[in-house]
């Protein structure tokens, strides 16, 4: 019973935190305020982003980036999972350990590693 309340409490705290962030963003998005002026609600920020071609380019970049990341992760994850679960591949525990370590490694380090090992086309 205590465990259930603990789970409910943690979930509620996470929900409150998320909702608080969402409310802050909505306040920024719909509110317009100057120094010592009352808050005025407006849709101007949305008008600005939806009439700017840069937003659409950024959207395409985001979708392309996320789609590529998804395909690359599945390309490695699905065959490795099959090999680990359905074959007598030696060193399965080692693979599981490496994968867990990979999940713990901050993406920042991975990105810096790639920047140093494969610099851009113009700076090789």
């Amino acid at each position, binding site marked *: 019973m205590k465990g259930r309340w603990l789970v409910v409490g943690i979930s509620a705290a996470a929900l409150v935190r998320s909702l608080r962030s*969402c409310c*802050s*963003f*909505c306040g*920024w*998005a*719909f*509110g*317009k305020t100057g120094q010592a002026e009352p808050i005025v609600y407006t849709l*101007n*920020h*949305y008008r*600005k982003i939806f009439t700017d071609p840069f*937003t659409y*380019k*950024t959207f395409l*970049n*985001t979708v*392309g*980036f*996320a789609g*590529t*990341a*998804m395909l*690359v*992760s*599945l*390309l*490695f*994850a*699905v065959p*490795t*999972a*099959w*090999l*680990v*679960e*359905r*074959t*007598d591949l*030696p060193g399965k525990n080692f693979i599981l350990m490496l*994968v*867990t370590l*990979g*999940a713990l*490694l*901050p*993406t*920042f380090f*991975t*990105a*810096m590693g*790639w*920047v140093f090992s*494969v*610099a*851009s*086309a*113009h700076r*090789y």
Partner: protein
Amino acid sequence: MNRFFVDLFGLQQAPFNIASIIGMGWVEGLGLSSIAFIMVVATYRTMDPSLEEAARVHGLGIFRTLRYVTLPLTFPGVIAASIYVFTIALSAFEVPAIIGMSNKIFTFATFIFYKIQPLEELPSYGVAGAVSTVLILLALLLSWSYFGVLRFSHRYAVCHRQGLSAALDRAGAA
């Protein structure tokens, strides 16, 4: 690495360019593959291996068993993992910030950051907030589809005996 390949093959241009959308996706995807692996491996673990064994007994090779039995049965798990990874990548910040921003390639996360902490002009919290709400909407849509996939996963459920233990294929036998 680029210098090595240029020297080795006498190329005019460096073969790898991670300062692009594909390159950034590659780096992020490698980072997220461990999460995808943990999700997919759980699907394989809970799947009844006797169906694959039956397919093998009836003469299907490894690849045809994969194509007609294994992949269709793991489909909800793989789709759920894809949606989850896509949602995380959509809001990822580190890789687009480290690789993309210095090359003026923006995603939503770095665009929001740039609007809050611009180098030259004043911060534009309103635009950052508006873009954030669009991102939240996209994340909600993806979460909804993720739970939708989980809700319909019972269609792929198989009645099986107690205690699953797969007869393992020999690695490299294919």
